[in-house]
């Protein structure tokens, strides 16, 4: 997919990148030097080795690029040396154009590897869908949206596990959450966070008027206890206790578990499963994801502050701001519009079946890449 949307590299960008590449080459060479010196201390040695390993992927690409560039130089000098030999010239021109193509491909690959990556992209995710304004109709649409992601996950071969569902009176979803796991889940779904608006004639509406209601979606990268440094003493786990003396006297089916994270006061309650153990495991999963999200957004805010100080014209999409209205589903007109990339898709049923979500997701990913390139070149210029 990334091959298709290969951005054209401007000469400026290439120049900036070249500078960065030679810096990396320098660094790599000096690290190699250090490692080969017998007097290097074990700590130095280990540190240098670790850094080298990090650079190795980039260095492979660079050495490929250098070979290509030498080849191009060779071909050019060949062409200038014998301008009379027509056959020779034709052959060299063809090879030159191939080599230049290859050089461009390598450059764009390198650029991508130099761009800042979101460590969370490969993570599994927690999906939360919450009915917003619009009463029952919002709950019904929340259910539709939840199922849309379920189908989308199935199509991508991801595992979609329902964590908890709070049903409304008409069997819509007041609130629903799921754990989605598979390859690159968060990287794909992260732009889905925000307010999704629906315009349609609700089943509850008798006079046939179109209503507008809203559903908020949150995609949280899955984290574990280690990521968020969860300590046992920070948790309070409450379970249902029977009245009377309990034990043999009573037999309850209430397996609800409520976990309170004492430092933040955040609570997660799960009561879906018959097994208290499973409820606890699910609640911990959600809690970890939420705490991780707090941590991430704290870092993101400080980062984007830095960026906007450097270049105030840049605006980041997919910031995960859940109050941002990101998409409208208009049933009477059969369209879905994403407000961030300004794309409208006219097969709403396909989208609701989880089919054509990629139209939006790919566009958002592309835009993110472009933004990253823009901020990459601006950050080099200022530094």
């Amino acid at each position: 997919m990334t091959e298709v949307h290969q951005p054209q590299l401007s000469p400026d960008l290439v120049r900036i990148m070249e500078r960065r590449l030679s810096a990396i080459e320098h660094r790599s060479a000096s690290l190699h030097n250090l490692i080969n010196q017998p007097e290097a201390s074990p700590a130095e040695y280990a540190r240098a080795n670790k850094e080298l390993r990090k650079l190795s992927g980039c260095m492979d690409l660079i050495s490929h690029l250098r070979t290509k560039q030498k080849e191009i130089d060779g071909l050019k000098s060949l062409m200038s040396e014998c301008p009379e030999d027509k056959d020779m010239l034709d052959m060299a021109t063809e090879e030159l154009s191939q080599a230049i193509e290859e050089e461009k491909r390598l450059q764009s690959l390198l650029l991508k590897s130099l761009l800042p990556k979101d460590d969370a992209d490969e993570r599994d995710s927690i999906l939360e869908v919450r009915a917003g304004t619009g009463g029952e109709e919002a709950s019904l649409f929340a259910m539709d949206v939840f199922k849309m992601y379920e189908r989308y996950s199935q199509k991508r071969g991801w595992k979609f596990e329902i964590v908890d569902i709070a049903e409304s009176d008409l069997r819509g979803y007041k609130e629903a959450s799921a754990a989605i796991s598979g390859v690159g889940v968060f990287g794909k779904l992260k732009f889905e966070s925000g307010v999704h608006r629906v315009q349609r004639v609700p089943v509850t509406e008798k006079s046939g008027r179109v209503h507008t209601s809203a559903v908020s979606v949150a995609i949280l990268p899955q984290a574990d206890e280690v990521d968020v440094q969860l300590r046992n003493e920070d948790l309070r786990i409450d379970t249902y206790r029977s009245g009377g003396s309990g034990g043999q006297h009573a037999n309850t089916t209430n397996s609800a578990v409520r976990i309170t994270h004492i430092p933040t006061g955040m609570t997660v309650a799960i009561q879906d499963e018959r097994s208290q153990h499973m409820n606890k495991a699910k609640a911990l999963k959600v809690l970890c994801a939420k705490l991780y999200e707090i941590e991430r957004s704290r870092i993101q805010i400080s980062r984007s502050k830095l960026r906007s100080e450097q270049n105030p014209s840049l605006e980041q999409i997919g910031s995960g701001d859940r109050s941002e209205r990101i998409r409208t589903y208009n049933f009477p007109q059969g369209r879905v519009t994403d407000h961030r990339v300004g794309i409208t898709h006219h097969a709403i049923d396909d989208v609701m079946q989880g089919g054509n979500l990629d139209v939006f997701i790919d566009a958002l990913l592309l835009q993110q890449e472009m933004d990253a390139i823009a901020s990459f070149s601006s950050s080099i210029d200022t530094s």
Partner: protein
Amino acid sequence: MPRLSYELLHHARRIDPLLIPLLHTCRSLPSAENELRWLREHVASLNTPRHPLASNASGVLPNAWRRHRLERLVTARSRGTPLQYLLGTEFFGDLELKVRPGVLIPRRETAVAIENLASLLRANGKVLRSYLLEARGDGSRLNILDLCTGTGCIPLLLQRLMRHVGIPTQILGIDISPKAVALARENGSHVAHVKDICSFDRGDIFAESSTKSTSPLESLLATKQMTNIDILVSNPPYVSPRQYLHHTERSVRNFEPKLALVPVRRSTLWTSGDAEENDNRHGDAFYPRLLQIANTIIKPKVFWCEVGDLAQAERVAAMAVDTAAWDGVQIWADEPAFASTVQHKEVSGNAIKLVGEGHGRSVICWRDEGRAWLGL
């Protein structure tokens, strides 16, 4: 029981009419909704029987059959049948065990206490492993005996939790009820790991031998090669007749086996004293015998038993202190892992620790190496 409000019933009917009968037993809407969903999932997982008059290959009207089945289960539940008997299973820790009428349903409080016991043993796993190696040699196992085992839940969970930290166990569960033994064996073959050794047998722990040389329990242990019991656990019947009438849930009284709840009266035990004291003694009947077994027949380093409430816990702790056979005695509440709340109780002239939050739930005693195993 307070009447259910009209608004609640009306609201429930709008969601699903089947919630109304369930509310009579569950008493709260979230509970009733959960139970209805679990029953529905259970019915959906059943294979529809092939109707003799069916013309289609998949059996006749599976939806109608399922609906009918669901309604029958809801009716049974509304009359108080425990949900676990209807579904055929109950969760105990992370085990899913079979349950069946005639055998007591495992309780969450029991699982919590057993998990706490296991986590103490696991925290001191090194000590325990080196003890096993020194005292019994290579490849030896931790021997656990459970008296009044019921579904077999306690030893099976202990075995599972200890296996996770690489301590192999040999467990034996004994129950007087043939139904319980059969069910515990099923559960054992269902959840135990291939490398685990678990067995369940029928036995009456009160039985005395006619020859007075060896008790029936002793001979049973000898045949099972369980002569060195390290840990004795038990959740015996502990409800007194008076509590049974006034303080047990209707569903427990009407549907669970009284044999597993109330000790069978042994006429020789009580002759004098006032009515309340006699009632208490009746409820406590198993504990003197368990302590006697622990001091004469087998000599476990750790003894754990469940009790009904704090008053009973204090009585059992007093009995244990009075035998002078234990180095330490503690009372655990429902949530013993909340160890930040520790109180002291004066029992038989000794200060006994009450650990955790909630009702008094169990009593634990240790001696010799048992102290190091538990890290207490």
